[in-house]
């Protein structure tokens, strides 16, 4: 294919050419869309054409720096004099017609002097972008609030400003055969593990797809196990989370037109980490992280446990409690499993509707759904109020996940577990949990185990994952990811104690 393109280049050199003929050829390519602006001028008896797609280039730049000198200066224009005299940088000369077309659509303005050998091109890209906003999906109480935007340039700018080091590498790659898109691999060259960088690069380069729609899609393309329901890369819209991971030796990926970057290799536990744990003092950070772990387990287990206990093993419920559960369930016409599935479904409906609706309506809907329907369902005898408490708790617990992807996975996992609990009781739950754990053990991210540092067991990394220690003790990076530099700062220096009254 590459060979083909090269031979094309030779044949589609149409210069020198008449300006009218050039216009005709270009207009033919842009049939039916009145996008091309092609203006002709006469200067010193020579015809000069300036053409571009107006909404892709900066009009003021063309006006001020291209047309003004071009028409006012009293020089006979040739390609060379244009290159020398026009006060714009980013200029190049092009001879291929195909190349002109390609450059036109990414915001280049061209100047052509009739019968010249080449066209002069100026990259005057005017890309519309939104301004920097607060993060929407991942919100923090402490720490930077800024979020990535859809503009890759802006994102690179933010990342560079956060990691001001020549160590930072931002490799450029292009993916997509018919609609190419720019991708950047971001890592620290003196820290990140070489094998991880190579794997990431290799996987992206080997992609043979027509286009990638978003970074989330790219993620799915290059995951280790695409059948798994667990996300295998940590995606984030927070630059501080992104740069923190990069500075710890992970490999980040940014995609053009996508406001989320992703980081690999990740472990299951990295989805439950928030940069906020870092900004908190270590005690509070550890506590919050612990709460999140408990919440995830709780969210998975509580409804299935209710179903199993009420359906089969009611012996485990103490008599007092059993009476009140029996009373509240007495009017319910459904079996426990169906009751639980119905209520979980209702909660999912509320959540999904809340995510789709505009913010103002969303709040009202939460009240309508949560209070009105919940209360009415109990009054009508459709569900027991104990189950409502359980389902609401488990939904709440699933929202504590800092990663939206993992939160969704956990909500999905609940349903098969409820069905298992409803068919096999406690045995079913243990079976489901075992299956889940085995799956997690088998899973990898960028070829690295998904459950590190739990398995393969790495004692020194526990403080990075399950809890936090005072900052002067955590002087090493996670050993599980084999960074080139393990030590962040000298631990001896940090924990050196002065004598009393020194």
């Amino acid at each position: 294919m590459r060979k083909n393109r090269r031979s094309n280049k030779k044949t589609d050199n149409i210069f020198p050419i008449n300006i009218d003929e050039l216009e005709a050829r270009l207009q033919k390519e842009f049939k039916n869309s009145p996008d091309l602006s092609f203006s002709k001028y006469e200067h010193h008896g020579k015809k000069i054409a300036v053409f571009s797609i107006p909404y892709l280039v900066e009009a003021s730049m063309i006006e001020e720096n291209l047309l003004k000198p071009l028409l006012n200066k009293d020089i006979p224009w040739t390609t060379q004099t244009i290159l020398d005299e026009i006060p714009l940088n980013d200029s190049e000369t092009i001879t291929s017609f195909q190349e002109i077309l390609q450059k036109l659509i990414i915001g280049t303005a061209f100047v052509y002097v009739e019968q010249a050998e080449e066209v002069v091109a100026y990259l005057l890209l005017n890309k519309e972008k939104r301004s920097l906003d607060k993060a929407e999906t991942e919100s923090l109480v402490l720490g930077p609030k800024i979020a990535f935007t859809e503009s890759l340039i802006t994102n690179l700018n933010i990342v560079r400003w956060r990691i001001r080091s020549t160590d930072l590498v931002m490799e450029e790659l292009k993916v997509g055969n018919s609609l190419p898109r720019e991708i950047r691999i971001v890592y620290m060259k003196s820290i990140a593990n070489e094998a991880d960088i190579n794997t990431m690069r290799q996987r992206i380069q080997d992609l043979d797809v027509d286009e990638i729609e978003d970074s989330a899609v790219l993620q799915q393309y290059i995951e280790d196990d695409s059948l798994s329901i667990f996300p295998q890369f940590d995606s984030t819209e927070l630059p501080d989370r992104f740069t923190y991971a990069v500075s710890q030796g992970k490999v980040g990926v940014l995609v053009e037109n996508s406001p989320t970057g992703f980081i690999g290799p990740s472990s299951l536990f990295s989805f439950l980490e928030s940069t906020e744990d870092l900004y908190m003092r270590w005690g509070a950070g550890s506590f919050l992280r612990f709460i999140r772990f408990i919440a995830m387990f709780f969210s998975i287990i509580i409804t299935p446990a209710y179903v199993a206990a009420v359906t089969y093993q009611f012996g485990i419920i103490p008599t007092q409690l059993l009476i009140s559960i029996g009373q509240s369930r007495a009017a319910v016409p459904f079996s426990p499993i169906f009751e639980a599935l119905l209520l979980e479904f209702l909660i999912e409906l509320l959540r999904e509707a809340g995510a789709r609706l505009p913010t103002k309506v969303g709040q009202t809907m939460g009240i309508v759904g949560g209070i009105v329907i919940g209360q009415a369902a109990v009054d009508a005898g459709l569900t027991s109020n104990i189950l409502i408490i359980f389902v609401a708790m488990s939904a709440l617990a699933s929202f504590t996940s800092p990663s939206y992807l993992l939160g969704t996975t956990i909500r999905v996992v609940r349903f098969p577990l409820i069905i298992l609990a409803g068919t096999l009781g406690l045995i079913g739950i243990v079976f489901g949990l075992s299956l889940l754990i085995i799956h997690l053990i088998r899973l990898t991210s960028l070829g690295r185990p998904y459950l590190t540092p739990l398995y393969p067991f790495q004692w020194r990394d526990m403080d990075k994952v399950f809890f936090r220690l005072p900052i002067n003790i955590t002087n090493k990076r996670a050993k599980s990811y084999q960074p080139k530099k393990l030590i962040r700062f000298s631990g001896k220096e940090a924990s050196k104690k002065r004598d009393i009254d020194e």
Partner: protein
Amino acid sequence: MNINVTINKSLKIPAFYLFFIIHGIQTGVGIMGVPRYIFSKAHQDSWISILLALIFMIIVAYIMLLILKQYENADIFNIQVDIFGSWIGKLFGTVYILFFAATLISVILTYIQVIQIFLYPTIPSFVVTGLLIFLVIYIVSGGIKTLVGVTFIFVILSQWILILAYDPISRMDWAHFLPMFQASIPDLLQGVKATTYSVTGFEILFVIYPFISNKEKAKLPVILGLCYTTFLILSTTAISIGYFSARDLGDIEWSTITLFKNVSYTFVERLDYLLIAEWMMIIIPNIAIYMWAITIGMKRLYKIPQRITLYTTSFIVLIVATVIKSDIYINKLTDTLSSVGFWLIFIYPFVLLPLVILKKKWRKRKGSV
């Protein structure tokens, strides 16, 4: 046939995990009912029997390591072929594989029995077997790394059961241990033998040894694993003796589970139900390791791909476990395994060691001449 096997470096595991492998495979269904058997032989001095069993086990494990050390990187299947020649060696290897398979089936059958007694009296055995086998296939097809990971994590995840033991401990009658030292030496030895069924499994060392990356450090985790298993058996037996009266203990088949029946809180009761469900997590590493050992054995002896052995064995196990229903057969199987296991695991290494050393000396002499 090359005696030493080469293992891909990415498949090697640190010796540290041997603790969990040894403990994981030893602790299975045996511990659920073993106090009664030991008690019936050695009575209130059962604890002495168990400690004697520990010493015996450590000696055997030491001999196993000694045998394995004579070779660079070999497992029991290749060593037997080396010592006894192709035919007898393969026959002995097959005995090992059959022993593993029978143990696997007996573990599943015993677990089904427990489930049927305590949880679901009418659950068909193929349902439980199917669930277990499904998980085992999923584990073993993930390779040794997954196997070790599952053993490691499941062993850790099932330790919370120990906390519940505070309740039976608080109700123990320490006078049940008195008078001490009443059992005669033969009774104690009988007690040691009764312990063996619940501690079989550490012969896996013979199979997994080539996969260990730092072999020089293998001894400590193995011994600690044996000690930990013995500690659990010792404590459950001791608690059972103190908790139940001597007459009752003879009648209670699953004394370890029954111990937890009385634990109750204001929000949850009957923890034995929870315990039996949780016991699945203790069973899974157990049978997965046996299944893995079978596949590896077939590969070493007959060059059958592991995947084929895995699927056929699973199928056979599913059928056998469905067909065998009567308690009598299950007990018979357990008893047979217990006596075969005693000879195969505890006595056979003593025979094998001199042969291996003789062979090594003979080979050295041959090499020098």
